């Protein structure tokens, strides 16, 4: 059956894939919440507070799953990939350490006040706590992406006796792929949260909710998505150019280019064949890949033949990349269609609301597909040019890894079912709750906010 290496890879992939879903939402949802709370402080309009109260609960549950599933990661580096820390621990350690010190504690420390402290601190302090949580989640993305990018494009270190030692921390943190990967991920988080907010708001509208809050949040989410999708496409393009420069084998696999060619076509669909080193059933736009990647119709793209056996597996990259781009294009069309409809002051048609509900978690699909492209695209290296995945693996008995992996998989299925069920239960419940009248309007930025509709515990 499977040996320890393969089981460890599956386990790590399962853990990190499941984990990343939740931070992807919370990184941006925290900024949505800060915006709602800030607008409430400014205007005193109860609708902002209602939007805040509904979404802060979804934030809390998402954040909790993110935190607890993240703890598993800090153990696995040592248990399943001991050589990783032994070889590059001097670089990875401090970056992870700064993430814990500056980000995790900031989030966790102020989360209590954000969730439970509204009646215990002034409105300003509460808004500030919300802002600090948002900064914390973003800082966490900063550090972890610095480390991940360093593993893709390492620099600023020197090797002594097979161990990496830091030389220039600024060069390590701001390694070549870092700015692109960070912005790509942060915007991905923005889109994931925007489509979640839009989808759940649309769900409430479909269930007959005629309150202001879901309409308002739907509008905000569509506005955000409308701006972020083109921005994401632009950043993605820049990221691709950067990858072409530093990891050309990854691009060759993504585009299914087996042999170096000039004027390479853009493959919309194909079935890559690793054995024959060719593609079947190609559906292509001539010269387009060269144009996108080199901004020249006749530009040369290095093929996989130049990297011999030192390149990642082609099919997973090829498909995952197309899934990501496909979801992105769908997001572009739907967000613009929806926002233009709202701009013309027309209600969204039911079919569009249904599409939005179906796309509630589309950000997850695109984010995961994107991560698979970049992470599988790093193979066979764990840290490019320094350590291969194979060499980093542990010597634990495969039976133990198989057991822990099975436990994790069962856990994740249960958690995902419970999470999705709960989110939609909360949305349904929100439909039934009556709207408070305008004379109950609470005043902004005054100590102790009206507590009528607050019910957290």
């Amino acid at each position, binding site marked *: 059956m499977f040996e320890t290496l393969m089981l460890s890879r599956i386990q790590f992939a399962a853990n990190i894939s499941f984990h990343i879903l939740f931070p992807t939402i919370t990184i941006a949802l925290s900024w949505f919440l800060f915006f709602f709370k800030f607008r409430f402080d400014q205007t005193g309009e109860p609708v902002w507070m209602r939007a805040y109260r509904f979404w802060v609960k979804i934030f809390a*549950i998402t954040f*909790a*799953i993110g*935190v*607890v*599933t*993240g*703890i*598993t990661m*800090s*153990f696995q*580096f*040592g*248990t399943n990939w*001991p050589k990783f*820390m*032994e070889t590059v*621990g*001097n670089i990875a*350690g*401090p970056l*992870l*350490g*700064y993430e*814990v*010190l*500056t980000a*995790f*504690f900031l989030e*966790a*420390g*102020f*989360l*209590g*006040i954000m*969730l*439970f*402290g509204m009646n215990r*601190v002034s409105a300003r302090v509460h808004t500030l706590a919300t802002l600090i949580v948002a900064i914390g989640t973003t800082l966490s993305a900063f550090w972890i992406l610095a480390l991940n990018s360093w593993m893709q494009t390492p620099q600023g270190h020197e090797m002594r006796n097979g*161990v990496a*030692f*830091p030389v220039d921390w600024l060069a390590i943190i701001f390694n070549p792929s870092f700015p692109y990967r960070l912005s790509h991920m942060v915007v991905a988080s923005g889109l994931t949260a925007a489509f979640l907010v839009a989808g759940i708001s649309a769900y409430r509208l479909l269930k007959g909710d005629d309150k202001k809050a879901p309409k308002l949040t739907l509008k905000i989410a569509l506005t955000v998505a409308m701006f972020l999708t083109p921005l994401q496409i632009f950043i993605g393009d820049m990221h691709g150019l950067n990858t072409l420069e530093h990891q050309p084998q990854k691009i060759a696999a993504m585009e299914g280019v087996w042999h170096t060619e000039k004027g390479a076509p853009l493959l919309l669909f194909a079935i890559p064949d690793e054995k024959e080193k060719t593609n079947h059933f190609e559906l292509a736009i001539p010269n387009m890949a060269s144009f996108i990647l080199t901004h020249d119709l006749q530009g040369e793209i290095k093929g996989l033949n130049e990297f011999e056996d030192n390149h990642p597996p082609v099919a997973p990259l090829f498909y995952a990349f197309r899934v990501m781009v496909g979801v992105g294009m769908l997001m572009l069309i739907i967000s613009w269609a929806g926002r233009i409809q709202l701009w013309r002051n027309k209600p969204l048609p039911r079919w569009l609301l249904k599409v939005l509900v179906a796309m509630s978690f589309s950000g997850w699909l695109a984010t995961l597909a994107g991560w698979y492209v970049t992470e599988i695209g790093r193979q066979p290296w764990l840290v490019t040019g320094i350590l291969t995945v194979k060499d980093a693996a542990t*010597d*634990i008995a495969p039976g*133990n890894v198989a057991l*822990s992996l099975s*436990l*994790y998989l069962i*856990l994740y299925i249960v*958690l995902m079912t*419970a*999470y999705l*069920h*709960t989110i939609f*239960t909360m949305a349904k419940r929100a439909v039934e709750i009556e709207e408070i009248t305008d004379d109950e309007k609470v005043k902004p930025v005054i100590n102790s906010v009206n*507590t009528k509709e*607050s*019910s*957290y*515990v």
Partner: protein
Amino acid sequence: MFEANSLAVIFVALMGFSILLYAILDGYDLGVGILLPLTQKDDSDTMIASIGPFWDANETWLVLAIGLLLIAFPAAHSHIFKELYLPTAVLLISLVLRGVAFDFRAKAAFSHKPTWNKVFKAGSLLAAMSQGYMLGMYVMGFEDTLAAYVFSLLSAFGVAAAYAYIGACWLIMKTEGALQVQAVNWAKKTGVLCFIGVVAVSAVNPLINPDVYAKWFAWPTTLYILPLPILCFALFVYSQMQLKLLPAHNDKGCWRPFVAAVIIFALCFFGLAFSFFPYIVPGKLTIWQSAAAPESLSFILWGAIIVVPVIISYTIFSYRVFWGKVQELRYH
């Protein structure tokens, strides 16, 4: 810049500090989870509300402790957690389950609440027991003998009792009325169990580790270290005496058992740390053999010097915000 040998000592101290804080802070909230009754609904809401604003930050100390072990002593990290691979998996899964149960019980369909309460209780208990088991295996030097497994199992119950004890003391401080009376009873019983556990670990530790024995029973060190067990014993007695007086008029001294429990935790921790220092893997690896590169440790230390005091101050701020009895916490 810092010198390599002192860096290792600084980092093991920082890590020890995190582990101790974790044991105290997550100890009381795991303890509250262990004590959660499955029948009385109102009590369970109050109990969970008492730890609601804190549990997340409490668990972050575990991430920091494990992170520091990983960063500063990578060889020890992989050695220890490879030995403890399966108990670690159980610990992680329990922590995940209880963390999500905390949120799901309040937000899922009402009919599912009793189920999530059970998950919360079971997750808390299993997390505490797996930590105890890991501590037992660590003390026994990861031996593959029947005695080691029996001792580790004993230690699992000991740690669960200790967490339940500090959790009960927390509830005495944070609640009133019938629940407070109930918490006093819990504290009395779990305090005795915790005491037995501490005595058992203290007795077995020097008996099976000749190095530990030599450390504790070497003149004149014994004289310096003697106040530690004496003080610990005195605190257990003091705590039981206080518990007899509680709940008192005007709620006088409701915080005393908790403070006593915190000091007991600290003393036990120092006892263990004293036993093993400078070994980080008992009998195998010292902190100096397994420390990471000084340039990396210096880089992170500067950050820690600035950030840790900030973390401590906003942690104190958060506890001040939620000061007092838990009833005020619930806003319906």
